[in-house]
């Protein structure tokens, strides 16, 4: 028990990897055994996450104070360049850790109908989970980078092998875009490493928390021009992941080609890494540049909101529409963060969590209809509500949640973001608000074309959603509803940290 408590984050990170290793030893042909092992390996982090939930102290902030991080594990890894194995959680990472465990487990369940090379698929999916957990737990920049890259390859293979017809193109595009981002990050990491000193030992360090103490910065880091360059390097790296306009073009391709469960993970967790990186790394390490850059960030956020929504409206492919709606929703995160107010920041973080659940539902639902009809053309259906009422119920819930109807978590997040940012940049917020109308419009329009109107006779025999699929959707729908009415459980988790984050950025003159 002691071991579990003192290594809880490591366990959550590496249990899936252990599962992947076990899967590789299973002899061929035992597909159900492979799926069961994968489900167990992806499930095990959930009780640990529950344990985290109950033991996490919500009163301390973390962010830039090492002693306030919880569940810390701190060991030396490559001593010659002071790389550390340093994990810890605070209010910025806690919601993301929770989200990762839930979505990953549901993704494994959602992959039950994969029949091609199930062994490789599940092993890669679990490896992906390890990478994602690692990114959210790492407090050493080198370690963060390693996990960030570890996550790339499984994703590449999962899209490239199990994807749709243009999978090779989509996979390589995803890979090269993200890689470009991560090498920019690598350069910035090296620049930070050589221009900071560990206050205790006097040597160079990869410790992120040291980077956040501006007093450790020396050399190049004292020049504002260089700091701008470094900030932009990081920003582009994270913007590709979010993805922000104009780096978003890989996303629709990747989503359209990826298998359902992989789309779920991609939209549900991977996109959040971009905004998480901004909160964890860019903002506290370069507070001065952040303040200098807020207006461009807000404008980019607004472009994402409006442009993403307009693109979504123009799509005839249901999955592509959902993909562009993610672009739009992630724009809200950026807008909220750029405001540098507590409400905006908390709203942005809550939007990350809420969008993770809602978009996961949407992609699961698109996958359900695609499995049965083998196409996703919005105009190719019609009147499905009469044939598949339960499915229609779920998709209506998901669509309403996604368009920000009060009573769902998305509404709370967006409302907080607008409240937080309206006082800071009025015009931009007013333009962004028009995005909400477009978002509502394309959701309702799609709902109408697919489920209402005269029944398309081709689909009179369409099979209703089955129990396994409901199992994937129900927890997400229930959580979205609960958090829409009473968001405090998640808000309490992150409030202290995000308020501290705003203070850290603002205190610099």
């Amino acid at each position, binding site marked *: 028990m002691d071991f579990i408590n003192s290594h809880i984050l490591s366990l959550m990170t590496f249990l899936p990897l252990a599962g992947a290793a076990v899967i590789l030893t299973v002899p061929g042909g035992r597909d159900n055994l492979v799926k069961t092992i994968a489900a167990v390996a992806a499930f095990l982090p959930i009780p640990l996450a529950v344990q985290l939930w109950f033991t996490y102290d919500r009163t301390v902030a973390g962010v830039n104070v090492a002693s306030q991080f919880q569940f810390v594990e701190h060991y030396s890894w490559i001593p010659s*360049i002071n790389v550390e194995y340093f994990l810890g959680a605070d209010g910025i990472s806690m919601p993301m850790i929770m989200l990762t465990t839930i979505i990953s487990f549901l993704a494994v369940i959602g992959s039950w109908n994969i029949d091609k090379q199930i062994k490789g698929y599940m092993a890669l999916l679990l490896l992906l989970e390890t990478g994602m957990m690692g990114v959210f737990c790492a407090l050493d920049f080198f370690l963060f980078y390693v996990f960030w890259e570890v996550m790339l390859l499984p994703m590449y293979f999962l899209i490239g092998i199990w994807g749709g017809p243009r999978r090779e193109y989509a996979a390589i595009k995803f890979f090269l875009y993200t*890689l470009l981002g991560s090498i920019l990050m690598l350069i910035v990491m*090296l620049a930070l490493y050589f221009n900071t000193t560990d206050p205790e030992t006097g040597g160079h360090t990869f410790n992120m928390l040291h980077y956040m103490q501006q007093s450790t910065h020396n050399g190049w880091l004292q020049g504002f021009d260089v700091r701008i360059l470094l900030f932009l390097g990081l920003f582009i790296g994270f913007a590709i992941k979010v993805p922000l306009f104009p780096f978003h073009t890989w996303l629709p391709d990747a989503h359209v080609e990826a298998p359902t469960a992989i789309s779920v993970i991609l939209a549900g967790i991977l996109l959040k890494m971009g905004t998480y990186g901004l909160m964890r790394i860019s903002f506290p390490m370069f507070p001065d540049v952040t303040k200098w850059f807020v207006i461009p960030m807000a404008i980019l956020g607004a472009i994402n909101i409006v442009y993403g929504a307009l693109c979504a409206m123009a799509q005839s492919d249901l999955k592509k529409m959902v993909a562009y709606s993610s672009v739009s929703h992630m724009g809200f995160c950026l807008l909220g963060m750029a405001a540098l107010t507590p409400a905006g920041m908390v709203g942005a973080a809550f939007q990350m969590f809420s969008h993770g659940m809602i978009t996961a539902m949407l992609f699961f639902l698109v996958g359900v209809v695609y499995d049965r009809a083998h196409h996703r053309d919005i105009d190719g259906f019609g009147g499905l509500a009469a044939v598949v009422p339960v499915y229609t119920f779920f998709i209506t819930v998901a669509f309403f949640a996604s368009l920000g109807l009060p009573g769902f978590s998305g509404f709370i997040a967006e409302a907080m973001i607008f409240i937080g940012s309206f006082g800071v940049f009025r015009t931009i917020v007013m333009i962004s608000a028009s995005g909400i109308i477009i978002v509502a419009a394309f959701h309702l329009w799609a709902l109408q074309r697919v489920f209402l109107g005269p029944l398309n006779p081709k689909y009179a025999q369409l099979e209703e959603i089955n129990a396994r699929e409901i199992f994937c959707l129900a927890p997400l729908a229930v959580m979205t509803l609960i958090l829409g009415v009473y968001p405090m459980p998640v808000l309490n988790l992150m409030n202290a940290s995000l308020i501290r984050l705003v203070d850290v950025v603002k205190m610099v003159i």
Partner: protein
Amino acid sequence: MAPISIDAAALLTSVQSIVPEIIVVATAIFVLLLDLAISEEKKHLLCGMGLLGIGVALFSVYALGQGRIEGFSGMIVHDGMGAFFDVVILSACALTFLMATGYSEWEGTHKGEFYSLILLSTSGMMFMAKGTDLMTVFLGLETLSIPIYVLVGFHRNRMSSLEGALKYFLLGAFASGFLLYGIALIYAVTGTTKIPVLATMLYDPRILASPLFLAGTGLLLVGFAFKVSLVPFHMWTPDAYEGAPTVVTAFMSAAVKAAAFAALIRVLLVALPGMQPVLWKVLWGLAVLTMTVGNLSALVQNNVKRLLAYSSIAHAGYILVGLVSGDVLGGQASLFYLLVYAFMNMGAFGVVMLIAQKEDEGYDIANLAGIGFKYPALGALLTLFLISLGGIPPTAGFVGKFYLFSAAVKNGYIWLAVIGVLNSAASIYYYLRMVVYMYMVTPDVEVAVPRPPRILFSMALCASAVVVVVLGIIPRSVLEIAERSVLSLLM
């Protein structure tokens, strides 16, 4: 005439300093003689004998340790650096022999001279890595090159093999000429060929300003640049790599590069640190050109051997990045990378060798189609080696590249690091292209049937894979050894 007195103690130390080399040469001769004595069916014994010899040589390196043993009045030295490169070169040689167990059977290279040429070349490399006199370096270079010329053309009936051999021989002969001429010019100005003595003379500004000396240094660099195939001296590489029997290609790519870089590192860090202000610009340019041209050319290759040849050019560029900075971190990074590179590149060649059923035709990239699922172990191994070559964590290739580029950043060569990482990103594209073929392309015809590997062959692949993964996760001890080796040089 007075008899020349022999200092027995000095002779003993001298012999001691070259024990591993003596063992390798003895093995080479023994293998050649054994070839005469045994019948055709027992030729695999030759390979076993070679492996045994390499094992003993490796053990002798271990027994000698990293302490400094000077021999032959300062012509040769066994120090940390020498020991490190002995290990790299002997490992590459051992992998070659392990792979040759299968390859020789398929392609008919089960001949005494094949193995003994590889061993002789290995001994030349080791001498080159340990030479502290430009003459020793030159002799080592010739000893390593001449057997390689023969080995490249070992398939007498294949046009491409002969073409590669001839090209390599002609250009290589020129390179040796350049190197020797450079040494002569340096000797003309300084009156010495000893590397440590040269270092002390460079404090004299008159020597540094002498055009003859500059020309000599330039020619010396050209000679080395040929051997490690830096752009624009790389023209021979794709043809020689493509033409050579694949097992020889693997050997060349890892061992020759290591030996030539060893000598280059010794010359740059020991003899020429005084020239760093001038030299770094040249090296900077060479590194950028080499990385960029190597990677861009590799992007369009459809022959796996040529692709790996261009990738090996690009890798020479990465390693040079470590030398541009000219400090301990840079040297340490280069050493570590050369070791890692030997394993990952030979591993990649090994897998490719199994998949291609026949020299020449078998190396088309389309031949990889569908291999990934039909032969999961081979697919996984090749993928591992390729992502390591591409520098993606958690493989050793990533740690190596990380060190190289951090040395550049540390010394203020930001743009070099930026160009380097951009190159590294571009290289991912062609490495992944092979992966795409293995896993994502449905083959037009039947999936190629790889040759069943011999046990020793599989061992070579597994050993490479283990090194690539372990050094990616716990690189600590090897990095420290590399650091000590570079420090031993500067003492």
